[in-house]
């Protein structure tokens, strides 16, 4: 009907929009790029060392990524605002230090010590949020100051000893508890059934409301994917030590914050502030409150990650939370597609990004290579991921213009 070159171009654009290739180019298929990257990394390491894909090593890998994964959840929320938190590493160390000192030197119960550690994180987030919103200081600077100051605070808290070893308690149990077949399979069934149920319920609601329902094939595809990952994952974990409590905590927190960001009003407001803070303010959203809350969540998750790291190391020392903790926790979500400029990304990118970075680190250790190689490869993957992201974004804006 339209004819001419313009019409043909439009038809082409439509083709690209509906076709699978077009959806990949626009980045619509979500995490498929990350899954491909993960598959490539795993294949390479498996070819280089056939111990990589064993149950023992995969269980270790999962335990290694929990701390970074949990810190990254908070990072994602901060990035969604278009802000950054450079103090997360130092905060994770400091809060673990506070917890360790309280329970080991002051004899507090582990539960209470963990709680105070987490609250210390929340308080630091409140300070970050206050300086960012009240004085309008860029988060980059506020948290850079925090990075330095909280490292100092950790040295102060640890005192002369420098290292505090954690005796067996609830704290060490966090990363050394494994569940057997009963818990493992129940979890796999519940998550798979939940995915299917939520998909079908949502579809029914839309049908009832006379809205275009999502394709059934998509729901089935997602359920099969999640189900396969859960059952194969649980199967592998069970053939070693069992399903780690730490992994359940990581998945639970990821699911919880994915729900908060995608399904609740508060989550919608985070995306709005990250997308256009002025528009959000004019729409009556309390921007300051959203910002401060997100900084509090970010630092609290950093504290939680620090506690998990201490639990795994069975100690807190002067270098807790330093080194590449900060960089990996930020690089992970960015590798998995969360934008540094705010408003775009999901909490799942924390989990997937941690897996990518954890896999590289684990594989290189397994091959006995130097840290130098690990750093350079991680940096290369980060750059490649961001470049790929930039290309798909450009494609998307080109197609949407037609």
């Amino acid at each position: 009907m339209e004819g001419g070159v313009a019409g043909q171009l439009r038809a082409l654009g439509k083709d690209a929009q509906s076709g699978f290739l077009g959806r990949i180019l626009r980045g619509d298929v979500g995490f498929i790029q990350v899954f491909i990257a993960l598959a490539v990394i795993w294949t390479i390491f498996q070819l280089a060392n056939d111990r990589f894909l064993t149950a023992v090593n995969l269980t270790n890998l999962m335990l290694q990524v929990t701390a970074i994964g949990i810190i990254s959840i908070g990072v994602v929320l901060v990035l969604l605002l278009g802000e950054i938190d450079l103090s997360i590493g130092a905060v994770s160390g400091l809060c673990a230090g506070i917890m360790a000192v309280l329970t080991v030197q002051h004899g507090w119960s582990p539960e209470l010590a963990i709680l105070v550690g987490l609250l210390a994180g929340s308080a630091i987030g409140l300070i970050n949020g206050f300086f960012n919103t009240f004085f309008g200081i860029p988060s980059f600077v506020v948290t850079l100051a925090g990075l330095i100051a909280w490292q100092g605070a950790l040295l102060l808290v640890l005192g002369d000893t420098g290292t505090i070893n954690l005796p067996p308690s609830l704290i060490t149990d966090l990363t050394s508890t494994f569940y057997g077949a009963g818990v493992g399979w129940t979890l796999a069934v519940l998550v798979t059934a939940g995915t299917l149920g939520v998909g079908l319920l949502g579809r029914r609601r839309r049908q009832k409301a006379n809205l275009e329902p999502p394709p059934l094939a998509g729901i089935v595809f997602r359920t099969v994917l999640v189900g396969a990952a859960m059952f194969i994952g649980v199967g592998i974990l069970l053939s070693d030590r069992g399903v780690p409590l730490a992994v359940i905590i990581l998945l639970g927190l990821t699911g919880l914050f994915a729900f908060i960001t995608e399904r609740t009003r508060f989550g919608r407001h985070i995306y709005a502030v990250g997308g256009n803070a002025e528009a959000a303010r004019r729409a009556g959203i309390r921007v300051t409150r959203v910002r401060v809350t997100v900084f509090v969540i970010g630092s609290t998750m950093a504290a939680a990650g620090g506690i998990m790291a201490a639990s795994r190391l069975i100690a807190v020392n002067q270098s807790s939370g330093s080194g590449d903790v900060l960089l990996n926790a930020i690089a992970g979500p960015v590798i998995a597609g969360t934008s540094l400029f705010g408003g775009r990304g999901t909490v799942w990118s924390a989990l997937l990004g941690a897996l990518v970075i954890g896999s590289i680190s684990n594989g290189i250790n397994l091959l006995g290579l130097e840290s130098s190689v690990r750093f350079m490869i991680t940096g290369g993957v980060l750059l490649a991921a961001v470049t790929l992201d930039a290309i798909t974004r450009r494609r998307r804006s080109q197609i949407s213009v037609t």
Partner: protein
Amino acid sequence: MARGEAKSNGEGNGAATEHLLALRGFSKSFGPVRALHEVDFEVDAGEIVALVGDNGAGKSTLIKAIDGVQPPDSGQAYFDGKRVRISTPQAAESLGIATVFQDLALCDNLDVVANLFLGKEVVDGVPVHVLDEVDMEQRSNQLLSDLSVTTLGSVRTEVGSLSGGQRQSVAIARTLIGEPKVVLFDEPTAALGVAQTAQVLALVKRLKDEGLGIVMISHNLEDVFQVADRIIVLRLGERVATFDREKVSPETVVAAITGADTAEMRRLEEQDQKGEEKTDD
């Protein structure tokens, strides 16, 4: 009698209650600069009032005084016949005064539904405010079809990928979520192409047909003459003229905006009157 000052003085304060929104004696100064001086203003339900004037005439200051962003130093406001105080944007909103901003306050990263309901999300569940996406999408479709906005495609499209006219349509539709009675437009067609301008003006007319009172700031007299019922001219912070669109020529309005001398104004107005009589016969 087209001269504004005489008309409004004749009405006095008592008659202010007949209008949907009426302002009496609004003044605002920024230091030594007098931005508004004793300005009266009124808009009725189902009426489009165009607010015209040169840069610095006080149009934006007046709009900001109406929507509570920048309350005036003195003056009284009447809404639905009642004396009201519009000291904050929230107060304006709860009265039923909505503003469509010039620089399109939309979030590019969110879809049309999310933008329409921004800050007014429909939620269920009391402790946890879970978004009711189905309800919001249904109401978005309803709202957009009521407004005959059909060019959007899916309401799940990201706003960042829409054209300027489509974005303006979304921005206008969004103000209606709060069910306002008066809608203020600050340059609704600035930076839009010909077809998109027509689309937006049609939308403005449709709001008028729904019985809303519309106030529109515009530099574009062509747009003004297409949709406005009354044209209020501000110059140097004062209301200098009020015209009935059907009884005035663009030349006269331009003369009032630029401040042509009284003799010239009178000559133009008489010319308009004659033209009017001719068409009446």
